[in-house]
C-alpha cells in the first residue's frame, strides 16, 4: 500500500521519548522507514530482485543493499525489505510490477528500529541475545531474526561496531531498555 501524499494526521513514533545514554556507546531510535515483509518461491526471486533493484539474498544470515533499499534474508522464502525515508520508495508497487507470484505486506509501522553504535555494541546486544556476534561469525552485513531477552528482533550488523535492531512496536520500550542496560554493562 503506497502512502498518500499529504496526510492530515501526524505520526507518533514508538520510542519518541528516549535518548541514548553512554557516550562511547549510543543507543538511539532510527528514523522511520518503509518496510515490507516479502515472501516468494525461489523461482521468482530473480524477477523480484530486478523489480526491487537489488539482489534478494538467498544465503542464510545475509543481506543486500542498493539505492537506499536493504533486503534481509529471514528465511528460505522470506525477506524483510527496508527502504530509507518515511515516505518510502514504493516497495509494494515494485513487487507488484515484478509480475510474479509473491506476498508483500506493508509492515512499515509494525517494526521500529534501534541503532546501537560504538565500542562494546556487540557486548550490549549480548546482554540479551544468544548469538555469536564476533566478526567471524556475524560479519558486517550479516542479519537474522533472533531473540533478545524476552522479545524477538531482527538484527543487522551495519558496521564493525554498529547494529540495527528491528523490533515490533510494542516491544520497542522493552528492547530499548534492555539495550540501555546492556550498553551500561558493556562499559564495565
Amino acid at each position, binding site marked *: *500500500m*503506497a*502512502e*498518500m*501524499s*499529504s*496526510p*492530515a*494526521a*501526524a*505520526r*507518533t*513514533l*514508538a520510542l519518541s521519548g528516549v535518548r541514548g545514554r553512554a557516550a562511547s556507546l549510543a543507543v538511539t531510535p532510527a528514523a*522511520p522507514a518503509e518496510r515490507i*515483509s516479502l*515472501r516468494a518461491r525461489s523461482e521468482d526471486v530473480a524477477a523480484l530482485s530486478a523489480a526491487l533493484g537489488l539482489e534478494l539474498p538467498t544465503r542464510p544470515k545475509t543481506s543486500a543493499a542498493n539505492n537506499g533499499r536493504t533486503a534481509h534474508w529471514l528465511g528460505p*522464502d522470506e525477506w524483510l525489505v527496508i527502504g530509507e525515508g518515511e515516505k518510502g520508495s514504493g516497495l509494494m508497487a515494485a513487487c507488484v510490477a515484478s509480475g510474479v*507470484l509473491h*506476498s*508483500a*505486506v*506493508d*509492515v*512499515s*509501522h*509494525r*517494526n521500529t528500529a534501534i541503532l546501537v553504535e560504538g565500542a562494546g555494541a556487540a*557486548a550490549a546486544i*549480548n*546482554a*540479551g*541475545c*544468544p*548469538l*555469536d556476534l*564476533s566478526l567471524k*561469525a556475524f560479519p558486517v552485513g550479516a542479519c537474522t531474526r533472533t531473540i533478545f*531477552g*524476552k*522479545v524477538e528482533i531482527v538484527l543487522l550488523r551495519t558496521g564493525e561496531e554498529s547494529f540495527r535492531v528491528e523490533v*515490533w*512496536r*510494542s*516491544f520497542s*520500550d*522493552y528492547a530499548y*531498555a*534492555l539495550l540501555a*542496560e*546492556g550498553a*551500561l*554493562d558493556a562499559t*564495565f
Partner: protein
Amino acid sequence: MSGSSHGSAKNLGAFRLKGAGRLTPARTSRFTFDGKSYTAMEGDTVASALLAHGVHLVGRSFKYHRPRGILSAGPEEPNALLDVARDSARRQPNVRATVQEVFDGAKISSQNRWPSLAFDVGSVNNLLSPFFPAGFYYKTFKWPREAWEKVYEPIIRRAAGLGVAPKEEDPDRYANRFAHCDVLIAGAGLAGLTAALSAAATGAEVILVDEQPQVGGALHFETSTTVDGKNGFDWAQETAAKLAAMPNVRILTRTTVFGYYNHGFLGLAERVSDHLDRPGRETPRERLWQVRAKRVILATGAIERHMVFANNDRPGIMLASAARTFLNHYGVAVGRNVGVYTAHDSAYEAAFDLKRAGVSIAAIVDCREQPGEAVLAEARALGITVLTGHSVIDTTGRLRIKSMTVARNGNMDIRKMAVDALIVSAGWTPSVHLFSQSRGKLRWDEASQRFLPDIYAQDCVSVGACNGTDETDLLVDEAISAGGGAASVNAERRFGWSGGMIGAAEGAGPDTRVKAFVDFQHDVTAKDIRLAVREGMHSIEHIKRFTTNGMASDQGKLSNMHGLAIAAEMLDRPIPQVGLTTFRAPYTPVTYGTLVAHSRGELFDPARKTPMHDLEAAEGAEFEDVGNWKRAWYFPKRGEDMASAVNRECRTVRDVAGVFDASTLGKIEVVGPDAAQFLNLLYTNAWDTLKPGRCRYGIMTREDGFVYDDGVVGRLAEDRFHVTTTTGGAPRVLHHMEDYLQTEFPHLKVWLTSTTEQWAVIAVQGPKAREIIQPFVEGLDISNEAFPHMSVAECAVMGVPARLFRMSFTGELGFEVNVPADYGPAVWTAIWERAKSMGACLYGTETMHVLRAEKGYIIVGQDTDGTVTPDDAGLGWAVSKKKTDFVGIRGLKRPDLVRDGRKQLVGLLTNRPSDVLEEGAQIVADPNQPKPMTMLGHVTSAYWSENCGRSIAMALVAGGRSRIGQTLYVPMKDRTIAVEVTDTVFFDKEGGRIHG
C-alpha cells in the same frame, strides 16, 4: 614466634607475620565482626583478616550448635558462613568468609547463635544429641496428630536454617552476557594457565576462568613449585598478563563456572563489585556469563579432605593447605603452636612453611606407617617431631582447640599435646563436579582411592589434579596437549605427593559414641552414616538423604568421599558398588539476582502498549493486563468508581456512541492464490464464498474439535485476507497456521504475515458512529447501502491509508478504523474530539465485555475453555456442513462430543434483578442436596447491565438449551441465588440496531 604485628597505629593483627605473604600494608580497611572493629589489608578475605587477629570462632553448627571455626581457605568452606552487610538492604547471609574479600565498612556477623557466639543457648542440643541421631524425626513427633504442625515443626524450623534472609528489596544491579568461545578453561592454576597458553597459541578464542581474585590456584600456597625457574605464583601472574594482552583471550577472575549444561553451554557467575569499598551505583554486583564453548578444558584442581576423628570440628582445626594459604599468601599464622594430623605428604609441607615462619610445630601425627622419604627427611632437618603410625583420637577446647590426644594406632597408650591449632589432611579429592555435570562417567581408581574422569559425554578434557595427575611435569604435558597448541612450560615441585585415606580414622569407629564429623555444616558424624546403613539405607543416595550428608551449602565437597567410605566399610562392599551421589549444579551457590540479571521491573516481562496508550492514560484510563498487553479497562471521571464509570460508558455507547481501542486484537495477513482454500481448512466455516469487500466471523478449532480461537476475517481481494484473532491468541494462532501450512498443506500457495502491530485500531460503536467518522473517511461511501454490516474496504482516513471495517462487537452500528500504527494517536485524537462534541464517550474492555454479553457474543477463554465445542457455545451455525475437510472435522464427531447432556452456553437471569452473579459460581438443580453436590455447570460471564436495568449472566450448563425456562440455583457461601435459564441475547433480541 619471630613474626610480630605491624606498627600499633594500624593493628593488622597479632598473627600477621612480617615479611610473610603477598599483601602489602599500603591500603587497609576497617570492618566489624559481631560489633567489634578490626583492620584488614587489601586483598584479605574475611577469613584471613579474622585469623590475623586470632579469631577462629566464627559460627555455630546447624543442628548441635557446636562452636565452629574456619576450616578452609576456599569455596569449599562448610563452617565459616557469615552475614555480611554493606547497609541494611545490602545484607547477605551465608557468605563464605574464605571467599568474601574485606571491603571498607563491612558489617559482619556470625549466624545461628543466641544470645552470643561464645554463649549460645542452642548448644544444649549438643548435650541432647543422643536423642537426635540421623533421621530421628521420622520416628517420633507423630502424636498427638495436630502437634506436629503446631508444636514440633515450628521448633525444628526455628532451630534449623543458618542465615537470616534479607528483609529489604535488593538495590544492586546484576548483568548478563552471552558469550562464545572455542575453548573455555575452568581453573587458572598451573594446569589451566598452561592449557590457556597452548590453546591461545593456536589462535583459538579462549576464555580462562578462575574463582579467585588472582590466578594461580594451588600456587597460592605451593612454595615448593617453580615454573620456568620462577616462583610458581609469580609465574602465574606474569603468564596471566601475557595472556590478557592477546586479543583472542579473555580472563575472568572472581568468576565461578557453576554449571556445565548441554551442548557446551556453561553458566559462570562473576563477582564484579562485592570486594570494592565503594562500588559505583551503576556497577553491577555480579554478572552472569552464559557461554557456549566448542571445547571445555577442566583444570579445576583438587580439594583437600579433612580427617574424620573425634571432636574434629573445634575452632582452630583446619585443612593443612588452608593454613599454608593463610601463611604464604596472606601472611597470617593460624596459631603459635600447631599440630599436624595427616594421611598425606602434602601436609608436611604446611608444617615446613609454618616452622620456617617461626611457628612451633607440636608434632606431625601421621596415621601411615610409611610416609614419603623426602618429607620425612625434611622434617628431620627442620627438627619437627613426626609420629608415624599414630592418630589424633580426640581434641579438647570449648571455643578453640587446646590440645590433641594422640595414640599409637591399635594401642590405647595415649598422650595429650597442647596445641592452639591443628591442621589436617586426609589427601585430595579431584574436583570432578563439572565433569560430572557434563554427564561424563567416572571410574574408581583403586590404587589412588579416588574417582577420576573416564567417559566424556561432551567435547571436554580434564587436566591436572582434577584428572588425577599430580606430578607437575605430567600435568604440564597434559595441559599443553589439551590446549591443542604449543607452549613451553617447565615446572618442578620439590616434594612428590602421595598418601591419602578416606573414611573414619583410628578411634572414630566402627563402635564409638564419639562425634567424628563427616559433614560439618549438617553435623553428620561417622556414626550417623553407620546408623543409616544399619537401618537399611544401602544406596548412597538413601544414606545421603537419610543423614543429609553432603546436602549442605558446600554440597559435600569435603564429606562425600568420607561418607562413601564409611558406608562401604559398613556394607562390606567395594566403594564403586556403593556408588557416588550425583553432582548437581551449581558448583557453589549462585545469587538469584545474578541468575535473574536484567529481568526485573520493566524488563521482567515486556508490557505491550498500544499506540494510543498514553492518550488513554491522559484521559484517566485504568488499565488491565491481558496477556502481555496493557488494555484500557474503563475511563472513570472524577468521583466515579468502576461501576458507575462502566454504567455510564455502557449507556452512552447505546445512546450515542463510544470510542474503543481495539489495537491489541491479533491480525494476520493471508496472501496468495490459495488463501481462501487455506482458511477453509483452518476455520470451521467456509471462506471461498466470501466476496472481496466482505467480512465473516470465523471459528477455529484444533483437531480435537474444541474452540481454539475466533475473530472476524475480511476479504480484501481474491488473494488477500485480513484475519483477526483474540488478543491473547495471536501468537499461537499464527504458529498453528504456520504448522499446517508448512507441514500438512505445503502445496498451497499462500503466505502468512503478522500485522497485529502494523495497525492501530479505533472502534467507533453506537447509533452515531457513522456520523462521527464520516468526515475523516476519504474515497469511500460508508452509507448503509454502500457499506453494509460486515463490510471491509481500503480507503484513506485523514490522508493516511486505512482499512475500514463495518463490524460490531456491541450489537450497535459500528466501524473499526485501522490506520498505520504511528498515525493512530492523531486519528484517535481527531475522532475522539468529534465524538466527544457529539456526546460520545471513551470506553474500555469492561464496557466492551458488558455490551457484548448483552448481545450474547462470547469471549473465547471466558465463555469457553478448552473443552467447549462450537455447538456447546451456541455457534453450531458456524461449522460448515458442506466441507469435507477442516481442522477439527473428525474430532467433533467423537462419541463424547456429540452426546446428549453436554454443557451448553445459556443465559441466566437472577430472580432478584439486582443480584449480580459471581463469575465462576457453580450451578445446581437442588441446592439442598448434601455435599459433594452434583454441579450442572458454572457462570462464565455476569454483569450489571445498565441498558437492561438488571443483572445478566451467561453460563455453561449441562443440557442447557433444553433447560430454558427452568429455575436453577447458584449456592454461594452465605446464600443461594435462584436463576432462570434463558437464551443468551438480553438486548435488542431482533438485532436491528446493528444495521442502523
